[in-house]
């Protein structure tokens, strides 16, 4: 079995701040990390690999430095990695990103299962997984918290919905997007780190994927950002003081006045 895991390098949002005076993003000290949900996707793939003879390939679309993120997945035990990088990919919205990633999965030719994280923490759209599956014309399940196999070799997944859980059966090939519950990501091992250091990571551009430059990147996108601004700031903070009893009384009145339901 061949599993493709799609990952994204994202700015570490812990360090993204808004300058209170200029209301602009402060980029100082912003490092790139692997999107946390994608580490769960890598772990989900590696757990399948632990139990079977599956081969795992990590894919990412990004600038040349995104290669770092791929090497990190190799050091955790992923077999191979491919970087999708091309100036033409810049400015991709979720549609153009899905187009590019789906073309890469098609080029790998024998992928049985695609695993993505639930969403990326910079954009929070959760759209690339389902849009890729649509382009690849394969079934998918989002919000997967555990993975099993049926006796017939189908995928049996548990989804976490707003209302509870659902258990779905999916034939392969298919795509899933996963949550934290699939398992805590393993640490890189020394053996895999050595391998990751030396590994050759192929770089595929639009040409290699058979995509015309106007079907990818900003030109291939359907949506466009027209304005970016800081969210309105909360300035009306109150501190409730006094004895514990007085604080309880004051908070109760504050919430009552605010007409908070349930109080």
């Amino acid at each position, binding site marked *: 079995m061949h599993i493709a895991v799609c990952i994204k390098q994202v*700015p570490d*949002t*812990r360090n*993204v701040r808004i300058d209170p005076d*200029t209301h602009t*993003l402060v*980029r100082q000290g912003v490092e790139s990390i692997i999107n*946390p*949900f994608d580490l769960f996707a890598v772990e989900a793939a590696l757990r399948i690999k632990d139990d079977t003879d599956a081969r795992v390939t990590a894919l990412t679309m990004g*600038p040349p430095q995104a290669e770092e993120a791929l090497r990190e997945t190799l050091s955790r035990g992923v077999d191979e990695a491919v970087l999708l990088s091309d100036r033409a990919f*810049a*400015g991709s*919205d*979720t*549609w153009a990103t*899905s187009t590019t990633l789906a073309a890469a999965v098609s080029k790998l030719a024998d992928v049985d299962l695609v695993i993505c994280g639930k969403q990326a*923490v*910079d954009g929070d759209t959760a*759209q690339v997984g*389902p*849009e890729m599956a*649509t382009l690849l014309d394969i*079934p998918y399940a989002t919000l997967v918290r555990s993975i099993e196999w049926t006796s017939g070799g189908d995928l049996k997944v548990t989804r976490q919905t*707003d*209302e*509870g*859980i*659902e*258990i*779905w*059966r999916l034939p392969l090939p*298919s795509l899933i997007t996963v949550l*934290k*519950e699939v398992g805590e990501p393993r640490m890189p091992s020394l053996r895999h780190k050595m391998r990751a250091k030396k590994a050759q990571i192929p770089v595929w551009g639009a040409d290699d994927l058979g995509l015309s430059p*106007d079907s990818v*990147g*900003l*030109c*291939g996108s*359907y*949506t*466009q*950002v*027209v304005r*970016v*601004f*800081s969210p309105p700031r909360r300035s*009306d*903070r109150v501190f*409730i*003081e006094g004895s*514990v009893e007085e*604080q*309880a*009384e004051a908070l*109760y009145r*504050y919430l009552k006045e605010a007409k*908070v339901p*349930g*109080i």
Partner: protein
Amino acid sequence: MKAIVDRKKCTVCGVCSDACPMGAITVGETRIDISDDCTLCGICVDTCEFGALSLPEVGTGPEEDLGLYSGVWVCAEWRDGSVHRVSHELLSAGRMLADKRSAPLCAVLLGSGLEENLSRELITFGADVVYVVDRPELARFTDEAYANVLVELIRTRKPEILLAGATSTGRSFIPRVAASLRTGLTADCTELDISEDGHLLQTRPAFGGNVMATIICPNRRPQMATVRPRVMRPLVIAGHEGRIENVSVPDECLKSRVEVLEVIPEQDQTARLAEAEVIISGGRGLRKGENFALLQELAGLVGGAVGASRGAVEEGWISPSHQVGQTGRTVAPSLYMAVGIAGAIQHVVGMQGSKFIVAVNKDPQAPIFDVAGCGVVADLFEFLPAFIRKIRQERGETS
């Protein structure tokens, strides 16, 4: 490709350079330069007060006549025989957009054994037409069947705008609808408006809520957005009239390659974070798992759910499905009460959209107080029992 600088307008002030999250703009003596690190995110464009920065045009896709599309559609959701609250909210937002476009507002209702009162309810919230597809295959949600049916309806009736709830259902199948139709989709919007030339202005938080971005879909139709629940205000329009149209769709639309084996509703009301109006959340300050009982008691009292910080989940005090934050759930209830939570940014991004935030912490320096509308500096083990007593006392109950 990168952002375009109009050197005639640029004053080399450097504001864009500070704003660029990629560090792609260098400010020279007489000009700015944009490097290949530019990801065309567009942040610089808005920071430039001289209008010197712009982005290249987005794609048009296959050629089509945008004028053929009209009307605002809302994809309605239902649970256990009643309309989901988010659909009321969407209709109210949709009504405003439809009125501005002088176009009809339509609701789409998919399911099996749908009672007419569901459609009536959608009309009272502003729908002019309710399209109903009632088929046994739609009894349980699957992405494929739901998406295929909606795509079929959109292809034949051509709405200009489609709104759906950013629920676990909407965010799962709407991307399939958008991709099938080759159109754009904006996720989890918190504000909607329409420009004079008919662009749906879709505003949403990005970078964990640290910035807001307004997004348009200039060249494709329908313009599609999922909308965050509990942000728009639902409004009943007294005496509003509308019609219900039962639509039949080709059988092949209803095929699904996945099979739903089991649906298990969450029995524990305090675990239903997405639907809760009130969330009482606990962190490491609770010291041990048993102390979550205090939060459970308060949540039970106000009909709320219990959330947790990553710290509390990692200690094993509560299951991961309660986790709020970057790797857990993003929630936006009316009241979020953070108890014994320090307020790391990973937690804050998951809850800062809440309407009222109350923080209870004994450390007055805790960062959670920066996002709280109301701060209580107190020992939670003294404060919570007092607060619970207060509520019971007000209700005339004895504790």
